[in-house]
């Protein structure tokens, strides 16, 4: 019985990560080869009847302008994934540099740095994104920047505490004792040891970033029509929900599945990281 549950658990876990991986792969391939996969031009008006229900000709139906929803979703994958990745990359790189630097230098620098993080935490991150959009204006790339910026304190805080832990390790003391410079210790010794954590939190955050960007687009602050960004598609599909629910259901479903796949991979990565850490500590 015990063996069975262990096997079952592994199966489900692997199934989960396999599901996430495969779905994500499909989305990425779809995004890259969008012109080959999409049956119609994403922006061509009246490719079919307006608000036509799903059929073999129009897999996910058509929208109010008679555009093919499926084609728009395929092209939309290009936006949703890449904007998410870019905003997380921006946040994590800035957060890592900031976090590692204040943690390693310590003393006053750390106190002031942590204080800055705390104050930025005083703003709920979505509010911070909204505020940034209010300042720099509406638009997809502005939203990407805003979401990335708002995630910096979160990343910086986690990375700072991870770096602090590594800093206390004797092997870092050994580096100091060997006479290594600050930059070398920070980026050649501390960074590689917290890199797995960075990867995991970045992946874990990617889902949230995708949702935030889509949400802002939905609110009309990000991608503007006719761009086929999923959040923006939902925003326009919303008006016809009663008569043509497919214009709202399918873009949302893809958004949901993409985010879930990313989150699944994040979970799997963090489990693998735990295992890796216990190997490093010689527990296995």
């Amino acid at each position: 019985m015990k063996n069975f549950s262990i096997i079952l658990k592994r199966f489900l876990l692997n199934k989960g990560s396999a599901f996430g991986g495969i779905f994500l792969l499909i989305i990425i391939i779809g995004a890259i080869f969008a012109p080959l996969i999409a049956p119609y031009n994403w922006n061509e008006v009246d490719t079919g009847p307006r608000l036509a229900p799903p059929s073999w000709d129009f897999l996910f139906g058509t929208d109010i302008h008679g555009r093919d929803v499926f084609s728009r979703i395929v092209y939309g994958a290009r936006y949703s994934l890449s904007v998410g990745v870019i905003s997380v990359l921006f946040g994590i790189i800035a957060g890592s540099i900031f976090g590692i630097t204040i943690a390693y230098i310590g003393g006053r620098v750390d106190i002031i740095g942590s204080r800055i993080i705390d104050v930025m935490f005083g703003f709920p991150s979505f509010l911070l994104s909204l505020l940034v959009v209010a300042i720099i204006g509406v638009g997809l790339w502005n939203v990407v920047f805003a979401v990335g910026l708002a995630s910096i304190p979160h990343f910086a805080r986690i990375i700072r505490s991870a770096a602090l832990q590594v800093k206390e390790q004797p092997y870092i003391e050994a580096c100091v004792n060997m006479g290594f410079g600050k930059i070398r210790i920070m980026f050649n010794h501390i960074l590689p040891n917290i890199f797995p954590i960075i990867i995991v939190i970045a992946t874990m955050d990617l889902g949230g970033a995708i949702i935030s960007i889509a949400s802002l687009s939905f609110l009309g602050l990000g991608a503007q029509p006719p761009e086929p960004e999923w959040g923006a598609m939902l925003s326009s599909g919303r008006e016809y929900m009663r008569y043509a629910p497919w214009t709202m259901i399918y873009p949302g479903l893809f958004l949901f599945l993409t985010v879930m796949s990313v989150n699944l991979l994040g979970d799997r990565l963090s489990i693998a990281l735990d295992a890796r850490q216990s190997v490093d500590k010689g527990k296995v």
Partner: protein
Amino acid sequence: MNFFIKKLLIVIPTLYIAWTVVFVTLNIIPGDPVNLMLGGRPASDEVRENVRKNLGLDKPVFERYTSFLINATKGDLGKSYLTRQPVTTMIKENMMPTIELSIGGLIFGVFFGVFFGIFAGTKPNSMRDTFSMIIALCGISLPSFWIGMMLIYIFGTTLGWVPIVGEGFVSLILPSITVGLFFAGGMARLTRSSLVDVLNQDYIRTARSKGISKYRIVLRHSLRNAMIPPVTLLGIQFGLLITGAVITEEVFARPGLGQLLLQAILAKDIPLVQALVVYMTAVYIFLNLIVDFTYGIIDPRIRLERNRG
């Protein structure tokens, strides 16, 4: 008591810096607010100057900044560019629906989050654990604006069980779920992992060596210790209520602070944005303060630490 004062000493500068950031950033927005006021109508220089004076824009930035801070502490946050009403009145008028929605979302999120977390965490790697965690994963992966629309479509339009518009408790159900779903998912995941972690601690082994029943071990020895991380999360997640308010109010076409903020941003109504951000950060910081106090009740280590210094 000592701790309380110490905490307040941290809150005040945080608020001050936060408000300063708001003021500075919002005052560097390109574009002349006077144009907004006039709604694009052509006007003579004299009229423009009058409007400018009315808005207090003729004063130097530093003076505006100090009067902003002084007025903010008094609760006077200026007048909206668009409606010419005092912004505090506008906030007051729109406050109640948002508070109702937040409380609804909070109750939904905490209840289901903690329930599924404990359900899964007490028996890790079992079927019920897997089941609960799949639900929680969906919770954090569902875009709230989409699930809100789906709920309206399924329960309102198709099934007709719940009124889509209207007031009262029933109309609060779907919006509360929309706000609380992400919250519940995160809560469930953290409660589970924290419980699993606690159940692996040495002191649980000690408790088992005393011959105490499993039921009592979970109830008496694990839950209190396991709730410390979820309570921390609660503090950070209050921010989600603001997200929830903005999106859910838009989806369900409910009046509230979220709608007000969105309109203000789209219209570049600076005093209103400023006031809403000031108000929301204050509430957020205040709620986090309450969470900080809750810690002490749960964890005697923190409580005693505080009493000492």
